[in-house]
């Protein structure tokens, strides 16, 4: 029987070596490309008619737009509108990646720490640059809560710095661990169906329920990833 971890293996489709660095086009890259095509298709086909009274397809597109627009307004305020393209792109990429992984025989690229950490470190570095661009050297006051008594400084500054540095790690590990655990659990329980014969109906019922739960997690994790991006941008803009 196939190992439950086999679904996470990366196979090169078009092997490529440039200067000793492996930049093969893998199944992971293939699914990222499919995700981008799906998002572009979803947005463009949905907005094709630009009707005043939208049909269902256009409704779905407008719903996703308004969801992120409201999220930005609630967490950052009006200055947050500038960051809409970035936040919307991140949300759609993670959401479609998660949902694409839920289709049978597909590959979930968000279950790889390399992908999620890549996203998180880009957000982290971008937000840090944004903070410096906005506040200059004053950005360092972010690590010192206002009103801290002087004897507490040597203790609080390292704690705040560690807390700040842990952001990209918690952001990436949360998404990666959730997707990895969920998909492994699905495969493990699905493996019991064949083993138990007639009584396989019990794990089968489990798998049906878990698939629903996994789809919820796919949405929820994309949402959590996005709202944390918004909160980090907000912190960089407003400091404390």
């Amino acid at each position, binding site marked *: 029987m196939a190992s439950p971890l086999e679904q996470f293996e990366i196979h090169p489709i078009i092997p490529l070596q440039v200067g000793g660095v492996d930049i093969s086009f893998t199944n992971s890259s293939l699914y990222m490309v499919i995700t981008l095509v799906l998002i572009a298709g979803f947005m463009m086909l949905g907005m094709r008619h630009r009707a005043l009274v939208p049909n269902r397809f256009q409704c779905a597109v407008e719903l996703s737009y308004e969801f992120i627009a409201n999220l930005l307004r*609630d967490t950052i*305020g*009006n200055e947050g509108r500038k960051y809409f393209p970035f936040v919307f792109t991140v949300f759609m990429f993670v959401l479609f990646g998660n949902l694409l992984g839920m289709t049978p025989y597909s590959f979930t690229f968000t279950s790889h720490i390399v992908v999620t950490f890549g996203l998180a470190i880009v957000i982290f570095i971008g937000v840090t640059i944004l903070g410096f661009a906005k506040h200059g050297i004053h950005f360092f006051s972010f690590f010192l809560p206002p009103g801290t008594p002087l004897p507490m400084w040597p203790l609080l500054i390292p704690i705040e710095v560690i807390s700040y*540095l*842990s952001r990209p790690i918690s952001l990436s590990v949360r998404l990666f661990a959730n997707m990895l655990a969920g998909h492994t659990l699905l495969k493990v329980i699905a493996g019991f169906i064949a083993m138990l014969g007639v009584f396989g109906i019990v794990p089968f019922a489990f798998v049906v329920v878990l698939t629903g739960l996994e789809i919820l997690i796919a949405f929820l994790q994309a949402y959590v990833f996005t709202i944390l991006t918004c909160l980090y941008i907000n912190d960089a803009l407003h400091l404390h």
Partner: protein
Amino acid sequence: MAEGEKPTSLKDLDERLRAARNSRTGTAKGDSGKGRGEQGGLGTALRVGVDLVAALGVGVGIGLLLDYWLGTKPWLLIVFFLLGAAAGFLNVFRVASGYGLAAGYKKPGDEDVKDKD
């Protein structure tokens, strides 16, 4: 008849849209931290565990690296382990009480809002 009315209703709709947009931008100013506590229980629960461990991991990582460079074998690891644990608890505290605030320091008037929910 119905076609003759269409332009006026469109103009009406345009005005209503503008009014709605203005009222929204008016309210959104200032209270930027509003939607923070409205994430729901499941979202918060999923965040807390990872936040705690991530800061601890960063602390241990910094401690190990500094020890490796400075040759002070176990001491900086111990110090940064404790600092990382503290940072982890700070992260959890922030998830529970709203982002961007340090431990023990709240914006004036924030307590009443927190006590209600």
